[in-house]
């Protein structure tokens, strides 16, 4: 099968026509080479490798009322993603080969993007004994990232063993860094504001202390480690220090931590309640700096759908988490590209190439070049749009960007040469 994508600018550079055959890019020619009636019109917009999310909650199995693999991956495709990593905190937990294979197969059936299951580190996320990591790695789902996300692997011995064990199959532990004792009952960032609002504080040190410990552990046992959604200036500085010392660490930041601050807690609206919590403006600046200089490797959405009743309540009763897939590109564009901190090649690096490498996904995050997989996204940097949950593919509506005007939009998404999104709508 042959598909043509006309008049697109790879990484914002010279306009070309792209021909795709059997899932690969078969030709790249100067724009105008292909007949104007053929294929998909790229309108001179920017072409990038399809985005890869390292941190997605698809909620299936268990909370299909909040999201399913089909609806979550549809949202991913609309957000320009061609692969997502589905977190393990489902019900049942993805801690066996059986569950991860089921998730992987459902992803293929849905067809919107590739689904790479993340395996749980410990059985039932209980933090007591290791799950069968090898079995998940050897399964059809080929799991390479393991995480108890939502819960921190706080036992240092267990963390050490996990870091060591996954070396056998080139896996990586993605740590949700949150000291459980320092954050008991915590509701928002611990700060002057938490004191005023009377909401129990979530100190930065509860994140930073675990990161520091795990980086030292990873160095000691010679393993790679991945830090999920880091959110504080201190975390950025510790990761920077460890990278300078040669520790094999990678780190992610969420779009919302790049743009939103704790000030939103003043509304007491759980729409803004998330783990880790929104931090201060200074932390926002620090994670932008970290993403700019590469200390932070990737943007990962932590897309966390929640049913309406879990957010339509008082702050303390509200669930942690917010939607991210459909707004991720716009947030990164506004905060990092429009500000001149990242160019298009660096954006491709942070949202596609590096995440694929961390997850050991071999057919994603590849350069736009002949012979490479045709998993691509076309974005319009000049478009603006307003966030409206009724137009979202997600089954949930808990976006923190409700009614907000966003800059930059995803126009077309292609998965191995097959359009999944055309002109901002799911392909039929």
């Amino acid at each position, binding site marked *: 099968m042959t598909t043509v994508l006309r008049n697109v600018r790879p990484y914002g550079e010279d306009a070309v026509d792209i021909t795709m055959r059997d899932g690969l890019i078969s030709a790249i020619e100067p724009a105008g080479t292909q007949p104007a009636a053929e294929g998909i019109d790229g309108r001179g917009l920017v072409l990038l490798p399809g985005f890869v999310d390292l941190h997605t909650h698809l909620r299936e199995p268990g909370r299909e009322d909040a999201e399913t693999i089909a609806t979550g991956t549809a949202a991913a495709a609309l957000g320009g993603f061609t692969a997502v990593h589905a977190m393990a905190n489902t019900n049942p937990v993805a801690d066996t080969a059986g569950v991860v294979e089921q998730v992987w197969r459902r992803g293929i059936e849905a067809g919107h993007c590739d689904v790479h299951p993340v395996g749980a580190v410990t059985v039932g996320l209980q933090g007591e004994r290791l799950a069968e990591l090898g079995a998940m790695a050897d399964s059809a789902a080929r799991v390479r990232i393991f995480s108890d996300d939502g819960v921190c692997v706080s036992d240092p011995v267990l963390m050490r063993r996990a870091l060591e064990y996954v070396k056998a199959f080139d896996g990586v532990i993605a740590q949700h860094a949150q000291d459980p004792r320092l954050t008991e009952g915590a509701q928002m960032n611990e700060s002057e504001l938490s004191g005023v609002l009377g909401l129990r504080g979530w100190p930065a040190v509860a994140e930073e202390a675990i990161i520091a410990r795990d980086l030292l552990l990873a160095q000691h046992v010679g393993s790679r480690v991945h830090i999920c959604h880091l959110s504080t200036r201190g975390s950025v500085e510790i990761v920077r220090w460890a990278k300078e010392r040669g520790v094999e660490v990678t780190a992610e930041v969420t779009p919302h931590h790049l743009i939103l601050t704790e000030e939103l807690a003043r509304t007491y609206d759980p729409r803004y309640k998330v783990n880790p919590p929104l931090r201060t403006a200074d932390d926002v600046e620090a994670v932008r700096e970290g993403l700019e200089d590469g200390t932070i490797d990737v943007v990962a959405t932590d897309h966390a759908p929640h049913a309406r009743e879990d957010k339509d309540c008082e702050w303390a*009763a509200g669930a942690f988490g917010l939607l991210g897939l459909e707004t991720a590109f716009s947030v990164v564009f506004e905060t990092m590209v429009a500000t001149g901190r990242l160019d298009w090649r660096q954006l491709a690096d942070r949202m596609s190439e590096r995440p694929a490498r961390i997850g050991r996904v071999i057919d994603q995050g590849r350069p736009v070049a002949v012979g490479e997989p045709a998993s691509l996204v076309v974005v319009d940097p000049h478009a603006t749009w307003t966030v409206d949950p009724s137009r979202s593919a997600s089954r949930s509506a808990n976006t923190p960007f409700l009614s907000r005007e966003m800059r930059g939009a995803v126009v077309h998404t292609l998965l191995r040469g097959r359009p999944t999104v055309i002109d901002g709508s799911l392909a039929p």
Partner: protein
Amino acid sequence: MNKHLLSAADLTRDDAVAILDTAVELARVSDRTVKKLPTLRGRTVVNLFFEDSTRTRISFEAAAKRLSADVITFSAKGSSVSKGESLKDTALTLEAMGADAIVVRHGASGAPHRLAHSGWIDGVVVNAGDGTHEHPTQALLDAYTLRHHLSSDEGALDGRHVVIVGDVLHSRVARSNVLLLHTLGARVTLVAPPTLMPVGVESWPCGISYDLDAALPGADAVMMLRVQAERMNAAYFPSANEYSRRYGLDVRRSDLLADGGIVMHPGPMNRGMEITAEVADGPRSVIVEQVTNGVHVRMAVLYRLLGAADVIGEAS
């Protein structure tokens, strides 16, 4: 005046003085045989208590009834609230009943704010204590009591020094009092062990001290906060004994106050913990009076909020 009373910060100095002045006049009504006023006839005030607080609930009930409002009290115990009905569903039920004012007490900080701003209800919301956030009518009744003793019922509290002692971290009373007393011109000093001071307290409009003996001399009033003995299990302090030695109010300490200085406590007291019985029942204590004043202040709040709410309604 704001539509709702959610935080002491919602009150300007003029608002606060107006409420206190109104309360002074309303206090006289309670000396009459007929204690009722017809002002809120035909209006419905709902007391929505998700958290048990007999004292505050009764005070609001009395206030609303003395203004002839229809009063519906909705306590968590034995209601659908305890069966897991959400705040939202409860709010929608109240809205269907036509509540003009909802007095809400809730264990979660910000729950009254959420009720007021979620679009679930139209009525006026009065915060009767939310989590570890605020308790603005307690601060108003404390200001009323202070003014009565220190400023002969008029003006504000300019230049007066009030020391607030105890578990500031978990205290909604302390938060509201710091804000309101500052608005009224008083100087406030918070005294607590460092573990019971909130992060960022340095930015509050008050002084901070860890030393009660150093803070008390010459103060016009001391307000003792309830300290739950269970806090020591979370390592906030080593033992009840050590706490009361360092931060408890006894006769020796209460005598450090200025002449005519008063001792206050929002209740319920832990006698022997933060305050000795001798001081609680002693000549400087105005603790019982605080309870009485609560009714007058809450009448004034309901009157002013419901008065304002209607005018806004007419205008729009």
